[in-house]
């Protein structure tokens, strides 16, 4: 909004309000000033319309709603020129007594953005204006103020053409009768608007319905009071009654505040959303925040011809139903918000919502991307461990088929040579000893190689599975070790190897560090996973820190999507638990 226009409007409003207040007390009228309640109520209504007009103008400079409030405010002011004791002011005030009612009808039918919706609206608004302008003018043609008994103190009615109380009374009654259908037409159209409203506009229209009841009611009572003697209710009708007319500005300001809160609601809706790709939840949160239950969040995947909303329905952006509007989102993929067209009057709100939705979708996309990368890293880690295991198996097999086999053959040959040397007559006595020592060396080499091969990859694991392999570990454990349970069945090579190395490392740690007198090994298959536990009664205080064998073990277990935990309170023994998923 142009700041000059704003300044001018504020200045005009202040001047008008001040002027009205002053003229209530400083005027040429004899007698006491008007009742304080009347002063308060008329001033409140004036200030409410003028103030709301400025606020609405500022909020929606492109809409006419601010102008309508402003005009209604000044139309409300015009009759109060009556306070000036001059014929011209007096005549203008009387002649424009009901213009504000025309404005109110316009305001109601143009609610909430100042735009009339169709021909019926325009006709009714025009009739309403015409009626409320013509009616007092016609009546004033036959009204001499002196009938009120003010005699010479009255300013002159400049419109008077025929001082006929009879005509004045007849005109008044016809006017009253005709005013009902006009008011009824306005109300009927408001109800039609309300019933047709969907989505975001519904909230504003609900408020209008509530506002229309006191306003239409008050105007109807005013009309009735023209023909029926309701003078004993004068205080209520003319002094307190105008306050009812403040309902539209109050409702408008309330909805403006709601819209402001909605912007906050958009961000809090996002904050309260769980992380993850949940477009349906995002839609729900935005719909709640925007107050538009019809909101759709639609997206088009690369290469797809049409948009699909979060319910899976196809959304044809080219032929949207009337009253729908599309706001594109700033996302790498194609995504849009399809919402109630009325929301275009809240560009800031829709901008915030679109930004929030873009952010959430981008977040979900990044998360999905990270998930994919994480899956890839997991898979590659598993492959690395698997490749390592395969390499270990290959090494063990090569040792077995190669060096070990050759050494056995060699030691057999040495054995034959030794026996021959022993049996031969007159053989070199040193030769037998030499061959004996060679044989010993060969056997020692075989034994060392066997242990080396076992450390690389235990053949018994491949051959018989966990049961035999863990039995073999336990037999070699220097600490009394009990096997409480080991499943006899076979598992995927990765799972078996991992479980084996967990037990192997744990028992090695028990022997090396735990100062334990006993250990227990338990392996159980439960609900698609292998639970491995090795506990001892030693000193505790073990840590799966970096550089320890346990850290490497934890990596290995994690590569299969499992977990390794160490419970090792000082003095309380150590319990190593691995859970290995086992498809």
């Amino acid at each position, binding site marked *: 909004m142009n700041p000059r226009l704003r300044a001018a409007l504020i200045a005009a409003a202040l001047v008008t309000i001040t002027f009205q207040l002053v003229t209530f007390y400083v005027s040429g009228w004899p007698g006491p000033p008007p009742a304080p309640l009347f002063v308060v109520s008329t001033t409140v209504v004036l200030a409410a319309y003028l103030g709301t007009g400025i606020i609405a103008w500022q909020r929606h400079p492109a809409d006419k709603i601010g102008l309508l409030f402003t005009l209604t405010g000044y139309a409300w002011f015009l009759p109060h020129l009556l306070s000036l004791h001059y014929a011209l002011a007096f005549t203008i005030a009387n002649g424009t007594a009901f213009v504000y009612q025309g404005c109110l009808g316009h305001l109601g039918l143009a609610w909430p953005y100042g735009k009339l919706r169709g021909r019926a609206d325009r006709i009714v608004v025009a009739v309403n204006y015409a009626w409320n302008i013509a009616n007092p003018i016609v009546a004033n043609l036959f009204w001499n103020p002196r009938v009120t008994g003010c005699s010479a103190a009255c300013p002159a009615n400049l419109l008077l053409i025929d001082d006929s109380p009879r005509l004045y009374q007849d005109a008044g009654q016809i006017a009253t009768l005709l005013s009902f259908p006009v008011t009824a037409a306005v109300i009927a159209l408001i109800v039609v608007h309300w019933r047709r409203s969907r989505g975001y506009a519904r909230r504003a229209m609900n408020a209008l319905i509530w506002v229309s009841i006191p306003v239409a009611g008050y105007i109807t009572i005013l009309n009735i009071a023209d023909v029926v003697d309701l003078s004993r209710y004068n205080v209520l009708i003319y002094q307190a009654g105008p306050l009812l007319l403040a309902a539209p500005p109050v409702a408008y300001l309330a909805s403006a505040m709601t819209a402001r809160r909605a912007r906050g609601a958009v961000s809090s809706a996002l904050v309260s959303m769980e992380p993850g790709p949940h477009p349906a939840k995002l839609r729900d949160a935005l719909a709640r925040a925007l107050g538009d239950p019809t909101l759709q969040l639609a997206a088009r995947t690369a290469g797809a011809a049409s948009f699909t909303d979060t319910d899976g329905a196809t959304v044809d952006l080219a032929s949207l139903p009337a009253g729908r509007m599309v706001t594109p989102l700033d996302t790498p993929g194609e995504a849009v918000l399809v919402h109630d067209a009325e929301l275009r009057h809240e560009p800031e709100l829709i901008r915030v919502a679109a930004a929030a939705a873009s952010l959430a979708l981008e977040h979900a996309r990044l998360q999905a991307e990270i998930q994919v990368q994480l899956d890839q890293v997991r898979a590659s880690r598993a492959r690395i461990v698997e490749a390592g295991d395969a390499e270990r198996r290959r090494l063990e*097999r090569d040792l*077995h*088929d190669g060096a*070990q*086999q050759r*050494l*056995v*053959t060699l*030691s*057999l*040959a*040495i*054995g*034959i040579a030794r*026996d021959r040397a022993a049996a031969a007559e007159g053989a070199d006595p040193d030769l037998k000893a030499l061959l004996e020592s060679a*044989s010993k060396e*060969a*056997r020692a080499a*075989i*034994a060392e190689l*066997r242990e080396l*091969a*076992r450390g690389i990859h235990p*053949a*018994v694991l*491949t*051959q*018989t599975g966990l*049961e*035999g*392999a863990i*039995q*073999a570990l336990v*037999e*070699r*454990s*220097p*600490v*009394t070790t009990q096997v409480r349970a080991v499943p006899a069945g076979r598992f995927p090579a990765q799972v078996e190897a991992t479980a084996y190395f967990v037990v192997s490392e744990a028992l090695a740690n028990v022997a090396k560090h735990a100062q334990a*007198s*006993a250990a227990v090994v338990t392996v159980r298959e439960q609900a698609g996973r292998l639970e491995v536990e090795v506990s001892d009664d030693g000193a505790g205080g073990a840590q799966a820190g970096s550089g320890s064998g346990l850290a490497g073990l934890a990596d290995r277990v994690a590569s299969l999507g499992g977990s390794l935990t160490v419970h090792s309170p000082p003095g309380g023994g150590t319990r190593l638990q691995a859970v290995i998923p086992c498809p």
Partner: protein
Amino acid sequence: MPVTGPGTGAAGADDAPTSVVIAEDSVLLAEGLKRVLADAGFEVAGLAADAAALLRLTGQIRPRVVLADIRMPPTQTTEGLEAALEIRRRWPGTAVLVMSQHVETQHVVELLAGDPRGVGYVLKERVADIAQFTDAVRRVAAGESVIDPEIIARLVARPRAGSPLESLTDREKEVLALMAEGRSNQAIAQQLWMSPKTVETHVGSIFTKLDLLPDAGDHRRVLAVLAFLRQ
């Protein structure tokens, strides 16, 4: 059948040489084994390079003894063991000596699960001590059980808290180990330089201390002692 001493030939009950089929995929080693066994008076009736050939040869030749490497083509896991079990099932009279680069109690349990008579399981490297090796072949041929001392030593050495094993004397432990290897009382007496009577006394004492059934025959007691050691 009487236990024959080392180096006294390999004659069976009918005085014909004991026939052996060797299953070993390393040609060099197979040839070496053949030579050693022939030198020791055995009749090497066939060589097989894998389990299928072994079963075929055994069916054809019906040897007295089958000497099989536990790991053979194609999978290099426990074909020899499985073939041995199959041979024991199909031709119960055929003795089987399974050789392995490493010895595991799990294999012993599988191998001895049926009738332990005429079944043996030894480290392959035992071939370096030719006398000991041919003796093992002879023992399985004679219906004894032969368990590699490596396994027994490991089992006996296992630490165990509150086990009755702790109450055995060192001598009794030696006797127990030899029993577990499948030795007869007579063989234990020879090995430990004691009279068979003394061995019997030790065996009785061991059985009492370990709470085992005393009347078990040689082949039964192998299982009893092994089962006890594995606890």
